[in-house]
């Protein structure tokens, strides 16, 4: 395997070490090595690497640059909220803190280039310098001239420097309107099931045999592969559930080779893990504790999403109910629902549009404030004075994100709102105030 990685410019044993650390990525590493060439050679000015999440982009770059001891700066574009931070990091890792301190307070691109050239003339590059930009898609949101300038950095600073952009997004979405120097595109394909198996089997438990762990991974992939191909996620799940898998073995019930029994034991457990830990309903610590205590049945613990009940003031509840009704009922049906003597509405006429898609599928509709108040007053049994507190409860609901204000045009004259809570939530709320909301909803007529 390791024989695949060969390059005249680097020592054999280093390449060997690199190859060991990069299982299933030999091809990509080989391409990269040949692109980089020998240390003193000029490399391509910019390389754009893209691939799905957890396809080993950063890892490959990191291992290559580290093991071959090439001068490099790794910059995460998430961290660099301003370009000045980015420049500082690059200068810091290439020329030390003296150079970084030369940058003015709000550094511009030209400052960076000037200082880079100045430093570069003092300590000319013997090897190619690499700047690795992780999460490069965020570069699109910075100044329009930053990305084109970085792509031409070799030309600008007249130094042997190569920019490597890592991203999950294809290059077509990066290209500026005015065009730029096109980078070399390199794609990292997804790991196949077999590759995932190989990689995951590598971190086996020391006290168990290779085959045993490998069969565990096999079962795990059988359950999770259909929903998740993310290496990091799978690795995390494998680590979490392995102790449960070993349990029958420790108790002496089964032997290591008895795969079928082990599978019968772990399979429902993994299914439950998919519904809880994978969705982060239950935290990993809680999950481990549950495995240890064991008395508690998994799932008895209420996850995050079960805590949807919110205590609200009495009128706020009704305001929310009224908002829900206003959002999901068409305005023409208001008379039918909220007027006692609504006159003649022919049933066929009224129900004619029922074949259409339900409003609950289409999402909430905006409604004006006066409709909200009208429904509110017809829904509340007692008489309520329109005091300042009612009005501020409405805006408090907006602050709590239970309602959303739709257009920010006029805050006072005719504000429009949308109801942002789910059906279950509003049903729970209306149950607490003894209001049958389903009877008032057009969709459920």
């Amino acid at each position, binding site marked *: 395997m390791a024989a695949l990685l060969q390059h005249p410019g680097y020592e054999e044993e280093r390449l060997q070490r690199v190859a060991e650390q990069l299982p299933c990525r030999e091809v990509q590493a080989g391409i990269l090595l040949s692109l980089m060439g020998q240390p003193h050679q000029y490399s391509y000015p910019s390389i754009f690497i893209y691939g799905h999440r957890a396809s080993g982009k950063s890892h490959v770059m990191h291992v290559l640059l580290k093991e071959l001891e090439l001068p490099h700066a790794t910059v995460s574009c998430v961290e660099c909220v301003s370009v000045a931070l980015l420049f500082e990091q690059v200068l810091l890792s290439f020329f030390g803190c003296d150079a970084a301190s030369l940058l003015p307070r709000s550094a511009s691109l030209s400052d960076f280039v000037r200082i880079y050239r100045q430093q570069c003339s003092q300590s000319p590059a013997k090897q190619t310098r690499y700047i690795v930009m992780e999460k490069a898609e965020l570069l699109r949101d910075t100044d329009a001239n930053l990305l084109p300038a970085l792509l031409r950095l070799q030309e600008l600073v007249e130094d042997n420097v190569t920019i490597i952009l890592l991203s999950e997004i294809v290059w077509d979405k990066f290209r500026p309107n005015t065009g730029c120097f096109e980078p070399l595109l390199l794609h990292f394909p997804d790991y196949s099931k077999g590759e995932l198996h190989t990689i995951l089997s590598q971190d086996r438990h020391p006290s168990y045999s290779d085959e045993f762990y490998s069969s565990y991974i096999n079962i795990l992939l059988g359950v999770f592969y259909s929903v998740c191909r993310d290496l990091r996620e799978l690795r995390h799940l494998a680590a979490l559930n392995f102790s449960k898998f070993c349990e029958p073995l420790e108790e002496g019930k089964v032997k290591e080779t008895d795969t079928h029994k082990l599978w019968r034991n772990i399979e429902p457990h993994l299914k439950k893990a998919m519904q809880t830990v994978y969705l982060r309903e239950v935290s990993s610590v809680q999950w481990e504790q549950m495995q240890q205590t064991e008395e508690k049945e998994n799932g008895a613990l209420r996850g995050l999403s079960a805590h949807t009940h919110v205590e609200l003031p009495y009128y706020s509840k009704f305001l929310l109910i009224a908002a829900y009704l206003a959002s999901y009922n068409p*305005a*023409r049906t*208001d*008379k039918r629902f*909220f*007027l006692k*003597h609504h006159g003649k509405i022919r049933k066929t006429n009224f129900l004619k549009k029922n074949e259409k898609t339900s409003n609950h599928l289409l999402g909430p509709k905006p409604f004006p*404030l*006066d*409709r909200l*108040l*009208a429904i509110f*007053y*017809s829904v509340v049994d*007692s*008489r*309520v*004075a*329109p*005091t*300042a*507190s*009612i*009005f*501020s*409860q*409405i*805006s*408090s609901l*907006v*602050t709590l994100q239970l309602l959303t204000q739709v257009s*920010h*045009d*006029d*805050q*006072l*004259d005719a*504000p429009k709102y949308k109801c942002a809570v789910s059906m279950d939530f509003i049903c729970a709320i209306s149950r607490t105030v003894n209001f049958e909301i389903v009877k008032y909803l057009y969709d459920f007529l």
Partner: protein
Amino acid sequence: MSVLEVKFIGDGDALEHIVDKQEGVQSNSGSVQKMVTFKNPAGRRTRVDAEHDGDENEVLDEQNYVQALGTDNAEVCVAEGMYRVAGSSIFTFQKGKRGHSMAQTASELARTPGKSVTFSTTPNIEPSTPTRTGRSEGESRTPQRKVQFVSTTPHRLRKRMTTPSIRSDSDSELSSSDSGEEEDEVGIEEEQKVKKEDKENLKTLRTPSKCSSAALYKTPAKKSKTASEVPNQPSMIEEYFEAHGSSKVLTSDRTLERLHTPKLDRETLVQLLEGKPSCCSKEIQQLHNKHRKHFSKWMLQLQLGFSVLVYGLGSKKSLLEDFRVSHLAQEIHLVVNGFFPSITLKSILNALTCEVLEHQGSFRTPSDQIQYITQTLKDSPDLHVYLLIHNIDGPMLRGEKTQSALGQLASLPNLHLVASLDHINAPLVWDQFKQSQFNWLWWECVTFQHYAEETSYENSLLVQQTGALALSSLTHVLRSLTPNARGIFKLLVKFQLENKDNPSYTGLSFQDFYQRCREAFLVNSDLTLRTQLTEFRDHKLIRTRKGADGVEYLIVAVDASTLMDFLENEEDD
């Protein structure tokens, strides 16, 4: 007797208040019946008589009415005093009771039922205010023979639609469509006409009664549509749903263009209005003096960490001005005119830092500036600053950011805030958090005074525009446009701001502008841009000029500082 005037509105009291008022409505419709059959109870007959044959002293009539209100007030004041002795009702809604008694008085006077049901504040009217009489005037103008028809409640909506025809058969050729402001403005004109008529032929039966009832029915500072917005009883809800049930939109083709009177400019308008003395200035003065008595309490409450919020019908400006002169003259204070259309948060904060705290230099963000103010006031606890805001719900102060900044200021222990508010939906501006910051004490101060200064900046269709557009009208116009149109305008504004230091700048040429708009995907053809520009020109947002080379040059007719504020606001959104 010291009058208690802390007014927390307990729900129970408010309810009672509404229930009572309903009874008032009942009696109201009863009185209508009686009026039709001419079997009035003794007390009421005098009033009706006064309206029937006392045409020549219509003013006197109104004075009687206000006097009646005044005596009611006095009684309630006594009652309040007694409550206070009882010590049990610090949280009761005492002013509400007074309002209720006024409501009853008014509903007895009412001709048409149903309209008076709206608010507790409905009858609080100053008869000669020329603003916003609108449809209510039209309704109250219904001839008496129609009363029977009017009081059959189930078809109220349709009736409302038909009232204009009743009205148009009287004397004007204006019909009131059911839609909004235009008609309100027509109302002003209308009333002016009516007043002129008044003077000329006092002997006619109809006009005076028209006027007095018009005065009775005016809703306070609020458009007719919003009347249905706060329904506090079932009938109101029904009315709302009836009115909004059908999607049919009734519009009138009688537009302002068909008006015979030409547009006035502001000076003429002011001149015309000058000659109308308020007919119950004495009573208004009394009311003012009554509110004045509370000033020392306001001061105490301000010291105790509350902020005073003054609400009610009528302009509160003179009241607050009086408060300022009498109590704050010795203190460091800052007056903010919230109704001013070009006021910004920045200008308020700048005034605080530069003039009150005497700080030189500028700040990068408003939050920095607030930080500085907080720190300075914390360092010198003896320094008390009073902030007086007329119309805290003014069009430029409504924003979320402005209000939270003001809230932060109000929560400082040695910055005291006195504010007035007029918009009916004003409490929407504050959520619970902001309310806790402001720590309001709500004071009802009904003054019945003209909103002379507050409305002087407002755009009216009947008044000719003078000078450059203000920031608020600029945003107002632009918000009703499509995002693309806004983008087009912003493009022009940005270009103009880039060139503001260039004295030889003559504007952007049309071709150039078209090119830029196309690049930004704002228009797809020459024609669309021209249409947009026509719209801007109609709203007086831009001016075009033919250059020497025969090319059109476009220029925004607003000064640069307003434009900069505008751009900042837009980016905030």
